[in-house]
């Protein structure tokens, strides 16, 4: 059984003939499209390393069947920067040392981008910490992560106001 699938991934429309309905969005990205920025840390929705945006919302790609996403827009870490210009969240993660080993980082960054779009947390660090709690970091870079989210959000808001 082949499932035809049309996905827009990082702005590029892709026609995919899926030969196996079991393929998750994460495995589609990593193993079939070789977009390996999204990471598999648990494969069960328990760590957040696979976080991507689907139609603008952050979700766990490991718990999403690709077959179910026909017509969706997917944004992964590979599609976040504009050419050489880092997204403000990416730049802030570097500046605030929001990572160590880097394995959870694509998921953290996509989660942060989703969080800023949701606009529920404001600049309240406690709300940001809560809203970023779906992304485990075993190295313990949480301080830098929280600061990076605040900093990037404030820069983005200034940019919007200008």
């Amino acid at each position: 059984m082949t499932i035809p699938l049309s996905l827009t991934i990082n702005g590029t429309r892709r026609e995919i003939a899926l030969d196996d309905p079991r393929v998750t969005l994460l495995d589609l990205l990593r193993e079939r499209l070789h977009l390996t920025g999204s990471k598999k840390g648990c494969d069960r929705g328990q760590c957040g390393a696979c976080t991507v945006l689907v139609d603008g919302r952050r979700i766990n790609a490991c718990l999403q069947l690709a077959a179910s996403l026909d017509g969706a827009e997917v944004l992964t870490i590979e599609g976040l920067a504009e050419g050489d210009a880092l997204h403000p969240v990416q730049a802030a993660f570097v500046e605030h040392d929001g990572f160590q080993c880097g394995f959870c980082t694509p998921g953290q960054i996509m989660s942060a981008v989703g969080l800023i779009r949701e606009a529920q947390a404001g600049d309240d660090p406690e709300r940001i910490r809560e809203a970023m709690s779906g992304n485990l970091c075993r190295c313990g870079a949480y301080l830098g992560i929280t600061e990076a989210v605040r900093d990037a959000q404030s820069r983005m808001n200034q940019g919007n106001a200008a």
Partner: protein
Amino acid sequence: MPETAVTRIRHGSSIGQPLTRRDGLLKVTGAATYAADNHPEGLLHAVMAVSAIARGRVTHLDVAAAEAHPGVVAVMRPENAPKLAQHPDKKDNPFAFRLDLLQDANVRYANQPIAVVIAETVEAATEGARLLAPRYEAEAARTALDTDTPFVPPAVGAGEEPSASTGDVEAGLTAAARRIEVAYETPSQYHNAMEPHAIVAAWDGDRLTLDTPSQALAMAQGRIAGLFDIDPKNILIRSPFLGGGFGSKAGAAGPQVLGIMAAKLAGRPVKLVTRREQMFGPVGHRAQTRQTLRMGTDGEGRLTALEHRTLTASSTYDDFFEPSGGVSHTLYASPNISATHEAVRLDIGTPMFMRAPGEASGSAALESAVDEMAEACGMDPLAFRLKNYAEIEPISGKPFSSKALRECYAQGAERFGWGSRNPAPRSMRDEAGLLVGWGMGTATFPALMMQAEARAILRADGRGAMLIGAHDMGQGAWTALAQIAADSLGLDLDAVTFEMGSSDLPNAGIAGGSAHTATAGSAIHEAGRAVIAQLADLATNDEASPLFGAGNAGVIARDGSLLRRDDESRGERFSEILGRAGRAEIVATAKSASDPAARDHYAMHAHGAVFAEVKVDPELGQILVSRLVGAFAAGRIVNPRLVRSQYYGGMIWGVSFALHEHAVTDARSGRIMNASLAEYHVPVNADVPSIEAILVEEDDPHVNALGIKGVGEIGITGTAGAIANAIFHATGIRVREFPITLDRLLG
């Protein structure tokens, strides 16, 4: 030797600068390549099937069902697994762990690999592994400390003596004005790096290319060479980035070798990625312990005796014994100290080094017990620790090479506001009515040196290169070692090509024991200096050079030039010297190792003080570590930004140790019942609202030429105890079993 910038920090030096990570761009764009991100042509996927029993043997696998699953290529099992040249139970050093590589049907622990299914897709391999539906002949599992008779292991940790003592503990206790005897339990903990152990293995004849995370490239290469009887030179291991290691990726773990075997069996490249639940068994853990401490003090609160007895567990088939008692060798002064270890053998995967092995579990118990002793003496916990400050290392009698612990206590206490602590338990509340507790602990970790080698190159264009097979598991080696490399060559960071993370580079030893920056950094420093020495020889012996006659020691290297020490206005560019000499490059290799003479004379440790504030719901018992302040002295700081991150991470591991981590084992089956990141809790962002790390200055002329001690593990020590003590202070309830859970605080 000519002077390079490292020996004196000043303008233009890279060391000491808070640079952002040089691998940051790759990591924030998803371009950093971890092992499982590789896809060589013709790649197959392999998934392990693991045992559901803890002891016994596999009697049946439904190989036909797995093979019949579309996409499955092969089922690797004892009957058809490639023959190994060396039995995987062969052990020639404490770092070489015995591996389960499908040599027979025996099962020695739950989650042991019992087969590997190889398929065209990861979906097919995963389902193939499930379809094997193993049947077993099970024997009763032994997984608790009380299910076997303790024995004294021949060595603990990485080959340390199982017992050490000074004086006479019984006499010290008899003479004491106050005594306590307390027993603490610490659970099995699993490393759970975010990146599961993964390998992409490709054979080409007897050459092997591996993408796999490694904290010890040369060691892994040697082990694999032995297992497959191939020349280590024919094995290329690429490990540019580890997604965390924490001790579990030191050698080659079983699943990684199984991936290599699977590639051999299939005759195609294979990717094997450990599933998260499979990380609870075959790739190591921190062993459970029961630590019994007896202490006595005189009328003024001076320790007259300190006894630290550890009971721990290893597997039935291998030797690793958690060295919890080590911290008591060094931390507090007492004329009578004894630290001993006993162990039992259980049906568990072999425990191994896990971030601060021994120090983390030992410090959790010791710092809690010290708090209990201080409480018994009616003394402030900080005053008690100062009263028992070790001016020399108590058991060895050696002076410390440096020890700025007093400054750590002072700066940490000041920043935390310790002075306003009400000493009475259950005396402090916040505005919401939550119980507030303040506790503290002393942090300590040995300043180790291992062995490494580096190769430095200076090219005709004046640019440099530094090559070393070093490892970055998140600590920041790509940045910190490059900073050392730049200074060693007297070059700006951007004028140095820095290569690491591959086994075809000079052997950098092990990224472990918090010693990698010191060890690899020292090799880099020496290699750079050796290149500069050759360059200085060229210049100072060349009449055409303004440096002629200055003598080797009369020049310094800075910003790509050699300068006369006595007149820095006279000098010339590296490229000019090389050009005139007609040299394309200068190459030098150097090694680093610990200095036995210095180690004979001095005890070498990093130190710190951790202050913790907890909030506890008075009725419901739920606990939050609301504030942590750590002050650490660890010699020279190469990059304060990265070092601070290491301290934060370590302290968060302390939170995890105190409140969260705990592998729950069913005593009947021996299976771990919470082998997932949903139920094996590690802290989330909301668990750590406030952490500060103070970098206390410390100059150590003895540890190594660079004066560097380690920073990767010390943060966890001290912290777990500080939190436990804060919980006691908040609630008046002393919980002696880690992790401390809310049910113990319901009263």
